[in-house]
C-alpha cells in the first residue's frame, strides 16, 4: 500500500542519497581524486538532457503522434557528429576564457558587453521558465497519480487547490533547496560543481534503468516481445496507424531536428554540463558517441510503452503523459510503479538543479552584478568580502527561477502537454545559436549584429509562441490568435503575414530565425567592431591556432599593483582561495609575487579571467579596470597585433623593398660590368699601341745598326749621322718606357708622391732651364709672363716640373717652324694657381681637345705627318695635375696656335701671407 507519506519518505530518502553522492564527489574533488574525471561520468552528466519530457512526455507524444517524439533526440546526435570542430572548439574557448555560462560566452565574444550578457540572461530565464514548469508539472502529476494507488485516477487541476497545498509548489520549494545546497555552497573561480555532476550522473543511471524496467515489463511481461506487442496493436487501427501509416506527415521533422540540434548546446544546463563542467577536453571524444547511444537506448521502449498504455486504457480517460506510471499501477506492480516515480523524479530534479544553477550564475554574473557595479560600484568596492553577496544573489536567483517556473505551470501550462511546453523553451534558446556559432567562425560579426539578431528573434518568439500560449490559457482573449491583434488578420500570431500551412512551431521558427539571422548579419555588416570586440573575435575564431598564446594574450596595456589585484580577488573568491591560485600562478612562471610590486599585463589578464569565472566577463572587466591604471589598447594597436592582413601587407612591403634593392644592385653590377669591359678594351688597345710605339724606334735602331754592321766601309760622315739617329732613337725608347712605367704606376696608385708646399716660381725657372737646350736648338722665341707674386701650391716638385717641361717641349714641337714663339703665363685664376703654355702652331681642332689627353693620342692636325712625341706626355700631365686636385685643358691661343693651361689649388699656408701682400700691392 502506497500512502502519501511513504512516497514522500522514499522521495526524500532518494534526494538524500543524491546529496550524499554530491557531498562525496565534492570531498573527492577537494582531495584531488576527482570522481568525475572520466568520459563515462561525463556522458551520463550530459544525459541531463533527458528530463521528465523524455520520461513521461515522450510516451505521451508517441501515444498521439507515433514516432514524432524521436527528432528531439536525433538532433543532438547530429550535433554530436560535429563534436570535433564545434563542441570541442566551444569547450576550448570556454576553458581559455573561463567562461561559465552561455550568457558569458556571447557577452565575451562580442567585446565583453554587459548589455548582451543581460539580454541573453533575460531570454534564457524567460525561455527556460516553461521548461522548469514542465518538470514541476510532471513531478506533481506523477505524485498525485501514484498517491491514489491502486486506483488510476487523474488528479484535479491544481489551480483549484490553494498554493500552499499544491504539490507542485512544495516540489518547487524542495528543488530550490536542493539546487541551493548543490550549487551555491561556495564561490569557486572555475565554477566546477563536481559533486553536482556526480549526482546528475547517478540520476541519469536511475532514470535510464527505471525507464528500461518499465519498457521491458510492458514488452516482455505484459506481451510476448516486440512482435506480439506490435501485432496486437496493429489489430486496433487507431493505434496501428501511429507507426504504420503512409498518411503521417513528417514536414515538421526538420524543424524539430534543427531545434534540438541548437538546444543541445544552447540550453543553459547543457552548456553547463557539457562545457563548463568538462574537466578534460578529450572526454568529449568518447561522449560523442556514448551520449547518442544513451539517447537511443532510452528511446527504444517509448513506443512500446505508449502502445501498452493505449491498449491498457482504450477509452482515453488516462493522460498519456502518465502511462509510464499508470500501466504498472493498473497491473498492481507496486514496486515498479514506485521505481518509475523515482525515475521520473530523477529526470526532473536533475534538470531543475542544473538549470537553476546555470540560470542563477547567469542572473548573478550577467544581470545583477553589472547593474550593481554600474549603479554603485564605489559603494560596492568599499565592502570587504563580496563572496557572501554573490552567494546570496545566486540563492535568491534559484528561488526566483523556480517560483517563475511554478507560476508558469499554475497559470499557463496546466492544460498543455509536456512536449508542447518543452518545445516553447527549445525555440527560445535556439535564438542563441546564430550569435554563438556565428561568433565562433565569423570574425566580422559585431556586438550590434548580435544584439539586433537576439532582440528580433526573441521578440518574434514572444509574439508567435509565448503570447499565443498565454491566449490559449485564457490570459489574453482567444481572438488574439483567431483574428490577430485588434482584428488585424495579417498579424495573427500563428499565421504571421498570412504564412499558413506550417505547424505552429515551424512557423515560429521560420519567422524568428529570419529576424534573428537577418538582424545578426545585417547589423554586423552595418557596424564597425571596437577594439575589444576585434580582439575577442580573433581569439574566439582562431582559437585552435592561438591555443598556446592564451596566457599572454591580453589587451591590458597598463599595470596594477599586485596588492590591489590580490585584494580584488580576495573580495570575490575569498582570501584563502586567492592565495592558493596566485601562488600557483607564480610557481608556474617562476615569479615571486611577494617581491613583485607591479603586476604585468599577463597577471592582470590572468586575474581578469579568474574573476570572470566568479562574476562574469563583463563585470570582471569593470572590476579589473577599477584597479588597473592603464587603459585598454587602441584600435590601431589591435589592428597591428591581430589583423593578419596587416602582417601580410607588412611582409609584402618588405618583399617589395627587397626586390627594389635587388634591382638597384643589378643595375650597379651591370654598370660595373660595362666599365670593366671598357677597361679591358682600353687595356688591349693600350698594349697594342705600346707595342706599336715601341716597335717604331726599335725598327729604326735595328735597320741603322744593320747598315752600319753590313757596310764597314761606310763614309765616316754617313756613319756619324746613322749613329746619331741610333742614339736618338734609343733615348726616345728609354723615355717612352719611363713614361709608360710612370703612367702605369700612377694609374695603379703606386706612385711615390712627395707632397710638399712649393713655390711655383722656382719650379718654372727650373723647367725653363731644363728645356733651355731644346729651345736654343731651334729658332724659337720664348716669352715669360709671370705675376710678381705666385701662391704656393701643395705638390710633388719633380712631377710638377715634369708637367711644365712636357707642355714646353710640346709647344716647341708644334709651334711655327720659321717664326716660332712660345709664351709661358703664370698667375692666379679664381683663387688658384694658373700656368699656361701658348704656341703659335696650327692649334688643336675643337674635336680633338678631349682626346689628346688620352694615351697615345696626338692631334691629327693637317700639318702633322708623323708622330713627334711619345703620345704619353699629355696623359701623364693630366694624371699629375688631377692628382694635385687641379684641372688641365687646351684652348685657342689669343691670335693663333694652342694654349695648354692648368690650374692648381693653392696651398693652405698662403692664407696668412696673402692679404698682407694684397695690401702691399694696394699701396
Amino acid at each position, binding site marked *: 500500500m502506497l500512502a502519501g507519506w511513504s512516497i514522500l519518505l522514499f522521495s526524500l530518502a532518494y534526494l538524500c542519497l543524491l546529496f550524499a553522492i554530491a557531498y562525496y564527489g565534492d570531498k573527492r574533488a577537494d582531495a584531488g581524486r576527482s570522481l568525475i574525471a572520466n568520459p563515462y561520468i561525463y556522458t551520463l552528466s550530459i544525459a541531463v538532457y533527458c528530463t521528465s519530457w523524455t520520461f513521461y512526455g515522450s510516451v505521451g507524444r508517441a501515444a498521439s503522434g507515433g514516432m514524432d517524439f524521436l527528432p528531439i533526440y536525433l538532433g543532438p546526435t547530429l550535433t554530436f557528429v560535429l563534436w570535433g570542430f564545434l563542441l570541442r572548439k566551444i569547450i576550448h574557448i570556454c576553458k581559455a576564457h573561463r567562461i561559465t555560462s552561455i550568457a558569458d560566452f556571447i557577452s565575451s565574444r562580442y567585446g565583453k558587453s554587459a548589455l548582451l550578457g543581460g539580454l541573453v540572461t533575460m531570454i534564457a530565464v524567460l525561455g527556460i521558465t516553461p521548461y522548469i514548469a514542465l518538470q514541476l508539472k510532471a513531478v506533481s502529476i506523477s505524485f498525485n497519480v501514484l498517491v491514489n494507488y491502486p486506483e488510476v485516477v487523474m488528479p484535479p487541476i491544481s489551480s483549484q487547490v490553494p498554493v500552499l497545498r499544491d504539490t507542485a509548489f512544495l516540489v518547487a520549494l524542495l528543488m530550490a533547496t536542493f539546487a541551493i545546497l548543490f550549487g551555491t555552497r561556495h564561490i569557486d573561480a572555475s565554477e566546477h560543481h563536481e559533486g553536482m555532476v556526480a549526482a546528475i550522473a547517478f540520476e541519469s543511471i536511475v532514470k535510464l534503468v527505471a525507464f528500461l524496467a518499465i519498457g521491458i515489463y510492458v514488452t516482455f511481461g505484459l506481451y510476448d516481445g516486440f*512482435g506480439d506487442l506490435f501485432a496486437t496493436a496493429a489489430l486496433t487501427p487507431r493505434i496501428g496507424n501511429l507507426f*504504420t501509416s503512409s498518411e503521417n506527415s*513528417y514536414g515538421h521533422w526538420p524543424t524539430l531536428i534543427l531545434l534540438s540540434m541548437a538546444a543541445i548546446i544552447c540550453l543553459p544546463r547543457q552548456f553547463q554540463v557539457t562545457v563548463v563542467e568538462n574537466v578534460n577536453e578529450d572526454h568529449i571524444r568518447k561522449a560523442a*558517441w556514448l551520449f547518442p547511444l544513451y539517447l537511443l537506448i532510452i528511446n527504444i521502449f517509448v513506443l512500446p510503452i505508449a502502445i501498452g498504455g493505449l491498449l491498457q486504457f482504450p477509452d482515453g480517460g488516462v493522460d498519456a503523459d502518465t502511462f509510464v506510471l499508470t500501466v504498472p499501477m493498473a497491473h498492481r506492480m507496486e514496486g515498479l510503479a514506485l521505481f518509475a516515480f523515482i525515475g521520473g523524479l530523477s529526470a526532473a530534479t536533475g534538470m531543475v538543479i542544473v538549470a537553476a544553477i546555470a540560470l542563477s550564475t547567469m542572473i548573478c554574473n550577467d544581470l545583477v552584478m553589472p547593474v550593481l557595479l554600474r549603479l554603485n560600484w564605489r559603494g560596492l568596492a568599499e565592502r570587504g568580502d563580496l563572496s557572501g553577496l554573490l552567494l546570496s544573489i545566486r540563492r535568491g536567483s534559484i528561488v526566483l527561477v523556480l517560483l517563475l517556473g511554478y507560476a508558469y505551470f499554475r497559470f499557463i501550462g496546466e492544460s498543455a502537454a509536456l512536449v508542447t511546453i518543452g518545445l516553447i523553451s527549445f525555440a527560445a534558446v535556439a535564438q542563441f545559436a546564430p550569435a554563438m556559432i556565428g561568433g565562433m567562425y565569423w570574425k566580422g560579426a559585431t556586438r550590434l549584429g548580435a544584439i539586433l539578431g537576439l532582440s528580433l528573434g526573441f521578440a518574434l518568439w514572444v509574439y508567435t509562441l509565448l503570447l499565443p500560449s498565454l491566449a490559449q490559457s485564457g490570459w489574453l482573449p482567444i481572438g488574439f490568435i483567431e483574428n490577430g491583434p485588434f482584428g488585424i488578420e495579417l498579424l495573427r500570431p500563428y499565421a504571421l503575414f498570412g504564412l499558413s500551412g506550417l505547424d505552429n512551431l515551424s512557423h515560429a521558427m521560420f519567422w524568428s530565425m529570419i529576424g534573428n539571422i537577418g538582424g545578426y548579419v545585417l547589423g554586423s555588416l552595418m557596424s564597425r567592431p571596437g577594439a575589444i570586440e576585434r580582439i575577442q573575435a580573433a581569439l574566439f575564431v582562431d582559437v585552435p591556432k592561438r591555443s598556446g598564446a592564451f596566457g599572454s594574450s591580453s589587451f591590458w596595456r597598463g599595470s596594477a599593483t599586485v596588492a590591489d589585484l590580490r585584494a580584488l580577488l580576495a573580495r570575490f573568491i575569498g582570501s584563502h582561495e586567492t592565495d592558493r591560485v596566485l601562488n600557483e600562478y607564480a610557481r608556474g612562471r617562476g615569479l615571486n609575487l611577494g617581491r613583485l610590486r607591479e603586476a604585468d599585463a599577463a597577471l592582470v589578464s590572468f586575474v581578469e579571467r579568474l574573476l570572470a569565472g566568479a562574476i562574469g566577463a563583463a563585470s570582471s572587466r569593470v572590476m579589473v579596470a577599477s584597479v588597473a591604471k592603464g587603459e585598454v589598447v587602441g584600435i590601431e594597436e589591435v589592428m597591428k597585433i591581430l589583423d593578419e592582413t596587416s602582417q601580410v601587407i607588412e611582409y609584402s612591403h618588405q618583399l617589395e623593398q627587397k626586390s627594389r634593392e635587388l634591382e638597384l644592385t643589378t643595375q650597379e653590377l651591370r654598370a660595373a660590368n660595362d666599365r670593366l669591359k671598357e677597361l679591358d678594351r682600353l687595356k688591349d688597345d693600350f698594349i697594342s699601341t705600346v707595342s706599336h710605339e715601341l716597335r717604331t724606334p726599335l725598327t729604326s735602331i735595328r735597320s741603322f745598326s744593320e747598315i752600319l754592321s753590313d757596310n764597314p766601309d761606310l763614309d765616316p760622315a754617313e756613319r756619324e749621322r746613322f749613329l746619331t739617329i741610333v742614339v736618338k732613337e734609343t733615348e726616345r725608347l728609354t723615355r717612352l718606357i719611363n713614361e709608360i712605367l710612370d703612367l702605369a704606376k700612377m694609374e695603379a696608385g703606386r706612385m711615390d708622391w712627395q707632397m710638399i708646399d712649393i713655390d711655383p716660381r722656382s719650379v718654372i725657372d727650373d723647367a725653363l732651364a731644363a728645356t733651355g737646350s731644346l729651345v736654343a736648338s731651334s729658332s724659337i722665341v720664348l716669352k715669360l709672363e709671370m705675376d710678381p707674386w705666385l701662391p704656393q701650391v701643395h705638390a710633388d716638385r719633380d712631377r710638377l716640373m715634369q708637367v711644365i717641361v712636357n707642355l714646353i717641349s710640346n709647344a716647341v714641337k708644334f709651334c711655327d717652324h720659321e717664326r716660332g714663339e712660345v709664351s709661358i703665363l703664370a698667375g692666379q685664376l679664381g683663387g688658384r694657381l694658373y700656368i699656361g703654355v701658348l704656341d703659335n702652331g696650327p692649334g688643336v681642332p675643337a674635336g680633338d681637345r678631349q682626346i689628346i689627353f688620352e694615351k697615345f693620342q696626338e692631334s691629327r692636325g693637317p700639318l702633322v705627318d708623323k708622330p713627334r712625341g711619345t703620345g704619353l706626355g699629355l696623359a701623364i700631365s693630366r694624371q699629375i695635375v688631377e692628382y694635385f686636385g687641379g684641372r688641365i685643358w687646351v684652348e685657342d691661343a689669343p691670335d693663333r696656335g694652342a694654349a695648354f693651361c692648368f690650374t692648381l689649388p693653392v696651398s693652405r699656408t698662403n692664407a696668412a701671407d696673402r692679404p698682407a701682400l694684397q695690401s702691399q700691392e694696394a699701396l
Partner: protein
Amino acid sequence: MNSPNRTVERSIATFLFGFLAFSPPLLAIFGAEAFVLGLPLLYLYLFAAWGLIIAMIAWIADLGAEKPPDLEPARRAKRNKAD
C-alpha cells in the same frame, strides 16, 4: 592519413547522411504499412539509421584519436634531452 581535415570531412559527410536519412521524403517512404521481423518498418529504419550514425561517430572519433605510442617516443626523447 587520418589528418584532422580528414576527420572533419568524414564528420560532415556523416552529418549530411544523418540529415538526409531523417528527411521527410525518406521517412514517408519508410512509413509504409509494413513489418520486418515483426517490427514496424519505420521504427526499425529509424533506430537502424540512428545506430549506424552512432557507429560512424565512434569510428571517426577512434580514428582521429591521438595514438599514445606516437607520443611516447617524443616524450622519452624530451626527457633524455633534459637529462
